[in-house]
């Protein structure tokens, strides 16, 4: 490749006083250094580019001053999810902490819990859109847990969810392994679920 072909001597052009013929040069150029350079640059740009650009998820918090969105909530609509340390999730139905179950972030875990709740709400109240998921976090949970649960809300198309502070009763129940002594539960007047 690295050769420039010179026209062979003696074939023609040497004899006679005819026209001065311009030398026929080969049009072939040696590409090797160019390819070298191109590959060097390719590897440089490949290594420096960040193809995974950061994305964003949107979070809406309720306005503290607004009252108009308030609505009576039926106990049967509510699923409480509490994020704990070591990627553990506690969950319970309704508004009274009684017996909490644990699950995890796998598709068979919290996602199934939410789907089951959606089906249950759909059966009782016609539409699964009524369901409300209340997300609470203990102080030992990490940020990834929060993003994961918000992502689950998106995956399961749960329209109504809220982030709330954990209540002292719930903390007590967690410390007690998810069960709360019935005497500790305050008497809350709830309408019977049909």
């Amino acid at each position, binding site marked *: 490749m690295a050769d420039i072909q010179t026209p062979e001597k003696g074939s023609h052009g040497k004899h006679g006083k005819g026209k001065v013929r311009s030398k026929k040069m080969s049009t072939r150029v040696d590409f090797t250094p160019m390819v070298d350079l*191109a590959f060097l640059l390719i590897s440089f740009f490949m290594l*420096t580019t960040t193809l995974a650009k*950061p994305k964003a998820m949107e979070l809406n918090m309720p306005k503290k001053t607004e009252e108009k969105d308030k609505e009576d909530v039926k106990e049967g609509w509510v699923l409480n999810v509490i994020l704990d340390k070591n990627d553990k999730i506690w969950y319970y139905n309704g508004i009274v902490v009684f017996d909490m179950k644990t699950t995890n972030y796998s598709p068979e875990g919290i996602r199934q819990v939410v789907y089951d709740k959606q089906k249950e709400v759909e059966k009782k109240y016609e539409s699964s859109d009524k369901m409300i998921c209340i997300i609470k976090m203990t102080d030992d949970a*990490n940020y990834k847990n929060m993003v994961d649960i918000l992502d689950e809300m998106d995956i399961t198309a749960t329209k109504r969810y809220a982030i709330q502070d954990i209540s002292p009763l719930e903390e007590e129940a967690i410390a007690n392994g998810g069960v709360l002594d019935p005497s500790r539960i305050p008497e809350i007047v709830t309408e019977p679920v049909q």
Partner: protein
Amino acid sequence: MPRIKLPRKSTAIDMTAMTDVSFLLLTFFILTAKFRPHQPVIIDTPTSRSELILPDPLMTISVDKEGKVFYSLSSLELKSTSLNNMIEKYGDKYPVLKNLSEQQKTEFANIEMMGFDVQQLPDILTKGNDYIQSLTGEQMPGIPIDSSNNQLQDWIMAGRYANPNMRVAIKGDSKSNIKTIQEVIKTLTNETVNVNTFNLITSLEGSGEAVKPE
């Protein structure tokens, strides 16, 4: 026995096709390259399947895994306006802030992520650009966010005054404790700041196929 003459073949290969391909790739990578801005603090964001592109102009509140809070703005003008707003707010409390020269104020734009008490600002700005560029997360204590001295709130307000349309994003590390994030969210949603819609910066997850229930 006559020798078999092997025809001599040229070792030269036609490189044209290879050059074509390599330059095509090169052009692609040059055009798609977006250099990572200098990040003094390493924040490993969690993944999600959200595909929203980050809005602009943007105010980013970063929380690293130790729970330190940093503040950054997307453009230089916003930085200088919000610095002036901050000086106005804190000038009476810390008179040194009022003595900042124009030169020092322009140095402020070089701070990619603001992570210290506002009264430390004059010290840091006098040390010059090289020092500012070399600042890492360990050297910055983070912006105070406790209720008695919530400077983050004032920075957010300063940024919002600079451009009311600016969106706010929280960029937290996967491992950062939820307590700090909740403090930040509380600051954002309190009655003074009143930013109730904001973004959480995440990176894209590989496969997030929803498994539909039967």
